Structure formats: C-alpha cells, structure tokens
C-alpha cells in the first residue's frame, strides 16, 4: 500500500519537473507574475468566442506551493512507511533510509532527464534548521545541561578547534605531498574545509541518538557539543573565508578571531535570552486569548534566530537560549492545552524538517557537481576519524581531573563514535564561492563521503555497539515524588555544606540564582499567584494531573499503566495515635479521583470555596474543562475532612466501591484497600450513606446497627463513633484484591463524603446537621 503511494508520489514529482524546486525558493514573484498573465490569457480567450472551457488546466498558478507540499508529503509518507516495517527500522536508523530514498528519487529524476533539485542553503538555514533546533532547545534538560556545562564547552570549543586545525593542517600536507592536481589547494582553503567538516552536526546526532536510548549523560554531552560548536564553526568559517582571498593571516587577525568568537557566542545567547524574556512577559497576559499562545512561542523564537543571523551571530545558540529561558515562565502561564499544542507542533515540524533534510541530502548527492579525488577523499575521512578519537581522548584526560563523575573509556568511545557530520557541513560547503575556491566541487564530494560514512556506518553500527559494550541506557522510570523531594533536599544540603566550608561552588551560585529568580524575575514574568509556587508543589500537581489523566484514560480493564501490586493504603501508614487524637485517615489519590468522578457526575452545584492556594482559580478559563473542577472538589473534600476531624469522629470507610462502570475502571491496583477496614463482620454503629449513582436510589440512608460482636478496641474507646461500613459484611476482609471487590454488593458505595448525598445537591450547610 505504501509502496503504491510512494510510486504515485514519485511519479507526480518527476512529472512536474522539479527544477523549479531548486531555483524557486521564495520566488513567489515568479508565480505571481504568471498569475496575472494567465488571467489575461483567460480573458483574451473569451473574446475570440471559443467554446466555454468546462475544465481547464492551470498548473503554473499553484506550482510552487504544490511542489513544496508534494515534497513534504513524500517525506511524511516515507516516514510512515519505515515505521510500518519494524524489522528494517530496527536495524537501519531512519536517517540512512531517508538518504537512500533521496538517492533513489534523485536518480529517478535524473533518469527522466531533469536536473534534480539541490538543497539550497537558504532553505536549509532559514526554514529547515530552526524547527529542529527550537525543538531541541525548548525541551533541553536544563539540569543535566548546566551540570555538565564545563565538559560540553570543552568538547565544543576546544574539540572543534583541534579537529579543524588537525584535519586542515594534515590535508594541506597531503595536498602538498601529492603534487600535481592538488597543489593548488592552499593552506587557508584546507583550514576552511577542516573547520567546516569538524563540526558535529546536531541534526544527525539527534536522529541517531534518539533511537538508541542511551543514558542521559552521554546524550547531553554529545548533543550539547553539537549545539554549542555552532559558534566556533561560524567564526572559523567567516575568518577563513574572509582571508582566503587575501591569503595570509596575521596575529591580529587571530586575536580578532577570538574576540569575534566571544561576541558571536555571547551575543547569540544574549539575543536569544532577550527574546525569551519578551516571550515570557507576553505570555503573562494571554489568559484571555489562549488560542494564540503557542504562536507567541514560535514567533519569538524564530525572530530570535533571524535577528541573530542578521548580525552573523550564532543563530543556533540564540534559539537554544530563547527556548531555554522562556520555558519555565511560559509553562507556568499558559494553559495545559497550549502546552500540548506547543509540544506537538514542535515535534511535528522538527520531524518533517529532519526527514526533508535527509531526503534532500540524498537528492543533492545525485545532483551536485562532483569531483572525485581518491587521495583527498580518503585522507579526509581518515583524518576526521583520527582527529575525533584523539580529541576526545585527550580532552577527557584533562576534563576528568575536574569532574566528579569521571568519563570512562566506554563513555569516551561513544562520544567519539557519536561525532556524526551532517547537512550543516554540506550546506556550508555549498555556499562557498567557486571563484575563491576552485576546488569546491572536490570539497563537496569529500564532505558528502564523510557524511555518508558517518551516518551510514557509524549510525548503523552504534546501536549494536551500545548493546555490546553494555553502555547504560536511559532509565524509563518515572520520577517519583520521593526522588523529587530528595533532589531538592540534596540541593539545599549541599548549598549549606558549601556555606559552612566557605566554599563558593556550583551549588552556591545555583542557589543564588534561584533566589534571584524567585524574588524578582518570577514576579514579573509569571501571571498571578503562580509566581509563588515552589517547584515541589508544581511537581506534585503535575504528578497528580498525570495520574488523574491516566485514571480517566484507562478505559477498559483494571490493568492500569502504573499498576503497582501493592495494597498499602494511608490507613496503614497512619501512626498509632491515641484514639482521641486520631486524625482522619487520609485518602489516597486514587480514591479521591474516584470520588471526584462520582461527584462530577452527580453533583449539580459546585462549591468554590477555596483555600489559601489560589492556583485553582482557573474556573474562569473556558478552555480548561474538567481539571479545575477536579481540583476544586478536592479542596472541598479537604475542608470537609477538616470539619470531620474537628468533630473527633472516627471515620472509617468500608469496602471499596462496587461495579459501577466508572468506578471499577478507575480503580488503581495499587490501593484497593484505601478503605482499609477492620476485619469483617463487626456490626458497629454505622451510618451508611448512599451516594447517588446510576445504580442506586438517590437517598441517604442511615443504617444504625447496634453492634454487639467484638468491636475493635479503637472503636470501643471512642464509643459510638461514626463508622460507615458495609451493611452486609459477611466476607472476611483479610486479603482484598481487586477481583474480590468486584463482587461486592451494589449497595456499597463510596461513603467518604457524607456531605454529598445526591444529585439534589444540598447546600453544604445542610450537611452539617447531618453530621452532628
């Protein structure tokens, strides 16, 4: 099926004559010019009394958008196709397959006789690259990035410089030695070539590393390096290009180059940060226009990239800085849906870009003017590999002196092996002026060979190597709240110890930054009450939301994604206090979720009395359905809990809820015992509250059973406490499992919330006499 579509699309592409793609970027003028002409033609024809054309063919009118869409469609269909062939996609990384497809398409186009389109550099730099970088920057794991920043910078700056000079210098040597054809290649050209080819490419790294799920440290090291070396590449490129015509470089030029590097990188970051802050500030006011929130994120980031490019600063670094700076503030301001939208749009665009880049790389290989020179190409390849290995090993030796977590040789191997080259290098070479660089085609050929080699050979073999070397993989475990608490605890602890030692280290500055952030920045950039929300609370709420979503989404069956086979409940955890002080057993989250669901379906009126924490006043937001209600109900229940505990009543909740479809579905396996009751059959004075549900009469029944059999010590001490229990408790409750619970009588209900009797929702006040 996919093959058929593929062939169809290919046919269309070839048929329409794709030379336009290569030469008509942004040349809407062309089609616009054609537009009025065709209009004129049409009006002319009506004058000469031909039969009225029922169906006419006006392809030129839509040529440009049509072709662009066709290419994007092709790319997406390819992506679709690969994932439908699991065996193939597990051996060969996607990027390789896409390049092969590009080669095929290019070959086909050439066969037909047309000139295949080439990956034009401005399309690449202006349209294809930014989405990928923004996606990477927005979701950059800041914590790991900053922890390893020193290492990453070392690799990016020093490593790239070393690579550039090593490759450039040695190639020059080879060229001189080789004689005849290559002697025209001067030192500067070689150095320029070296600097272009030495940069690790973020697109290729992302494409390959994403599939091998390597541990986060290595991922961030290689990926961070690929992002940050852009500044170095830009500077070296401009430096050598400027002076290639002149032919010599003096010491002042070198010094200026260093200054330029600082300007380029820091300038890029500053530009990005400014736009990021603007975006954060704008998002503060978007509470009434939620729909365009994602647009601001994208626009500001793109503007940051373009602004940086205007001044020849590092656009990539600007984009990363913008995304990283704006993210914490924007996410606190925007709605949940906007967040999802941003995430998915970014992923979609970057995925499409990525696919297009690789396909075009393949097509350009077929198209581009080539000049094959065995010695040059092979020498380039060998020197690149050797330079990378030497660079990584040497740098790691130095870096390990300063790191707490040393990089092992396995790590070093992966870092060296993961140094893939990609489309950025290709585009940069393509931009070279043939007058200044007569050997440009040779460079092009060499670069394409290196790219192919790294992507195919290294890309394909890295996965089995990772398995072979048993490199640590990414841990898929979810972040637990305990880990979060302790991570924060550790942060404060280490800061405290550093203060005691009088040592201004990593943690000290981080703590200072956080405090500054909290005190000044957050107040400006985050709307309303959320500016005061500590990270732990935010994390907790996020977790709650996630669990609530999981609960709701887990339609059929009692098997839930986060099912933990445990029957522990809060009841178990409560300390054995004297009964007078006994606090109300806390409801676990799962139970509360169920209560919320029932409440939501049954209650007609919601109470909006909220406590100190205002984050939940999202009621006014028409785009946020459901979640705020949940949270409000939760607050309400907490209030009730307070009331109840104040009255010194001992409340236990009987058996888990019965088979009503909503409830049975929503039960987490982790705590079917939240109602953890005492065993079986005591009839104690109990109040049974029947929550109105689809299956039961809407009423409150008070069942008073005078208990005679051994009531538990807790209850007897309290004497006539309110207990809600199952009216027909014949089965022992020793080991409750979810299955057993399903067999309970339909009369059993969630009886926690005494004040919520039924759809005829009474006032809360009315409930109190009931409780008394």
């Amino acid at each position: 099926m996919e093959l058929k579509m593929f062939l169809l699309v290919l046919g269309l592409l070839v048929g329409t004559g794709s030379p336009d793609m290569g030469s008509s970027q942004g040349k809407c003028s062309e089609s616009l010019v054609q537009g009025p002409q065709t209009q004129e033609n049409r009006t002319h024809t009506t004058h000469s009394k031909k039969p009225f054309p029922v169906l006419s063919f006006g392809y030129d009118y839509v040529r440009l958008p049509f072709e662009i869409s066709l290419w994007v469609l092709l790319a997406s269909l390819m992506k679709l196709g690969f994932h439908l062939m699991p065996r193939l996609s597990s051996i060969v990384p996607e990027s390789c397959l896409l390049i092969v497809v590009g080669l095929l398409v290019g070959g086909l186009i050439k066969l037909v006789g047309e000139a295949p389109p080439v990956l034009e550099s401005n399309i690449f730099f202006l349209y294809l690259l930014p989405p990928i970088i923004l996606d990477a920057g927005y979701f950059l794991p800041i914590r790991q990035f900053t922890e390893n920043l020193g290492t990453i910078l070392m690799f990016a700056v020093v490593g790239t410089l070393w690579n550039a000079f090593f490759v450039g210098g040695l190639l020059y040597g080879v060229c001189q030695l080789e004689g005849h054809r290559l002697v025209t290649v001067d030192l500067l050209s070689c150095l320029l070539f070296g600097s272009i080819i030495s940069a690790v490419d973020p697109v290729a790294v992302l494409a390959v590393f994403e599939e091998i799920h390597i541990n986060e440290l290595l991922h961030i090291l290689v990926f961070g390096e690929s992002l940050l070396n852009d500044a170095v590449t830009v500077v070296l490129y401009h430096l050598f290009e400027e002076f290639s015509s002149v032919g010599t470089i003096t010491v002042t030029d070198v010094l200026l180059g260093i200054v330029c590097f600082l300007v380029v990188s820091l300038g890029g970051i500053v530009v990005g940060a400014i736009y990021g802050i603007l975006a954060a500030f704008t998002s503060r006011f978007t509470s009434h226009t939620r729909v365009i929130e994602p647009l601001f994120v994208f626009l500001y980031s793109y503007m940051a990239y373009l602004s940086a490019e205007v001044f020849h600063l590092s656009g990539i670094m600007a984009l990363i800085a913008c995304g990283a700076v704006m993210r914490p503030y924007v996410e606190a301001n925007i709605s949940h849906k906007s967040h999802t939208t941003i995430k998915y749009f970014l992923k979609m665009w970057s995925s499409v870009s990525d696919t297009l880049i690789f396909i075009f790389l393949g097509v350009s290989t077929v198209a581009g003017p080539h000049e094959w020179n065995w010695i040059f190409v092979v020498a380039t390849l060998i020197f690149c590999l050797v330079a990378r290995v030497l660079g990584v090993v040497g740098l790691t030796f130095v870096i390990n002196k300063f790191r707490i977590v040393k990089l092992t040789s396995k790590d070093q191997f992966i870092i060296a092996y993961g140094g893939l080259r990609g489309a950025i290098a290709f585009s940069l070479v393509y931009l070279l002026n043939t007058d200044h660089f007569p050997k440009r085609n040779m460079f092009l050929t060499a670069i394409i060979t290196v790219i192919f080699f790294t992507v195919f050979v290294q890309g394909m073999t890295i996965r089995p190597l990772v398995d072979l070397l048993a490199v640590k993989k990414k841990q898929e475990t979810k972040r637990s709240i305990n880990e979060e608490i302790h991570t924060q605890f550790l942060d404060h602890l280490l800061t405290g110890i550093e203060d005691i030692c009088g040592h201004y280290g990593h943690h000290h500055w981080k703590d200072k930054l956080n405090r500054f952030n909290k005190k000044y920045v957050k107040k400006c950039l985050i709307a309303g009450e959320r500016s005061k929300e500590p990270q732990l609370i935010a994390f907790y709420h996020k977790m709650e939301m996630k669990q609530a979503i999981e609960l709701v989404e887990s339609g059929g069956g009692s098997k839930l994604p986060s099912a933990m086979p445990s029957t522990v409940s809060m009841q178990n955890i409560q300390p054995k206090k004297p009964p007078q002080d006994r606090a109300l057993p806390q409801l676990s989250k799962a139970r509360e979720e169920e209560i919320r669901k029932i409440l939501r379906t049954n209650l007609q009126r919601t109470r909006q009395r909220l406590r100190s924490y205002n984050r939940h006043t999202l009621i006014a937001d028409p785009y946020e359905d459901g979640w705020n209600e949940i949270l409000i109900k939760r607050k309400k229940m907490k209030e009730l809990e307070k009331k109840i505990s104040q009255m010194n009543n001992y409340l236990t909740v009987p058996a888990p809820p019965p088979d009503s479809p909503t409830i049975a579905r929503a039960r987490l396996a982790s705590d079917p015992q939240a109602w953890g009751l005492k065993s079986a059959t005591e009839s104690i004075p109990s109040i049974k509250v029947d929550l109105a549900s689809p299956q039961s009469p809407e009423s409150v029944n008070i069942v008073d059973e005078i208990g005679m059999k051994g009531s538990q010590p807790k209850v007897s001490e309290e004497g006539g406490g309110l207990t809600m229990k199952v009216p027909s408790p014949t089965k022992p409750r020793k080991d409750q499992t979810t299955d057993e619970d399903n067999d309970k009588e339909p009369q059993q209900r969630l009886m926690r919330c005494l004040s919520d009797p039924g759809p005829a929702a009474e006032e809360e006040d009315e409930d109190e006499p009931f409780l008394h």
Partner: protein
Amino acid sequence: MGASQSGRVHMFQDLADKTGFSIEQINNLRNRFMYLTQDEDTLRREHLENISNLALNPIRRQIIEAFFDKRNLGEKEKGCLQEIGFEEFVMVLSFFRPPKPRTSDEEMKNIKKEKLRFLFNMHDTDNDGVITLDEYRRVVEELLSSYETIGAETAKAISDAAMLEVASVTVGQMGPDEFYEGITFEQFMQILKNVEIETKMNIHFWNLDKRTMQCGK
C-alpha cells in the same frame, strides 16, 4: 613551635587516612574551622548559626544538627553532642568527599550506603531507626518553609503521598490491619537507588583557599 607543628602534621595524617582527605585539604579545613570558631578549640551550634548565608537555607537546622549528631561520628551511641572538635568537623564533612577516581564497585556501594545513612540520620530525628510520617512531614514542611503562601495541608498531602509511595514500592501487599511503622534504612536505600547519591552528594574540596575562607560570613 616546631614540635607542635610536627605533632599537628601527625594528627592531620591520621585524619587524612581516616577520612580520605589530603593533607592540604585538611589544612584548609583547619583554617576554616579556626575562622568559624574564632580560634577556639571547639565548635558550637552558635558558630554555625552565625554564617549569614546559611540563614537563608530552609533546612539549616537539620544541617547544623547533623554536625552534632553522634551517629554521624561513627559512634554506636545515639544522641547529640553540644560541641565538637576539629576531628568531628572533618569527619562529618568527609561524607561529602567525592569518591576517588579508581574506586571499585564494591567500594562505591559502600560509599553510597554511607551517604544514604547520613541523609537518613538527618531525617530520623528521634533516633529510632525509622522515619515516621511525622518526621517526613516535617522534612517536607521545612523544604517548603521558604514559601509563605503554602498551607500546611499541602505539605501534609505531599508527605503523605510520598510515604504512600515508599510503602507501596517497598512493602507491597499489606493487609488492612497491618501498620506501616515508617521508612527503614533498607527501604530508604531502595527508593533512592535511582538518584545516584554517590555522584551527586559531593562538593569539591579542592577549591578551598584563603580567599574563599574569609567570604563565608
């Protein structure tokens, strides 16, 4: 002068062997100790409380207590001291020493266990060997104490959820009558095994020098 110097060097050597610091680091720490105590021999709580930067730390009380906790000083007894000497100071700080480059896996595990034990002792304030719900609640409340608007119930909810998680993960099945006392050390180790304590709970001692010494206040 010479005699006391060599005597001190000898003492430092012992300390170095015991705690794993280098002689230079111990010298620096000695200078810091003298600075904190204003040239007295023993360190008391007030000396630590005088550090202004520490005042902003939400868990400063527990940090200061940790220095005076006998359990951290290798003694089998429980309880607190009122004042400590330089040796004890260094011993507590040795918990934060980064592991040497060539440590075997076995040693790493021990180091991790020691560091976790230190953390555990910080939480377990009543020395009974388990972290009860109350103690954990207090930990969370202290963490959130720097944010004024947080109600007590949110802290309670978080700590309850955390305890529930610990219990669920470590104990698994529990009947309705069983009572979960608190987090034992083994369970503590289990829930934090993903946090990589041995690499995170470290500070660089090589950076200590005269300049930063004076800036602590």
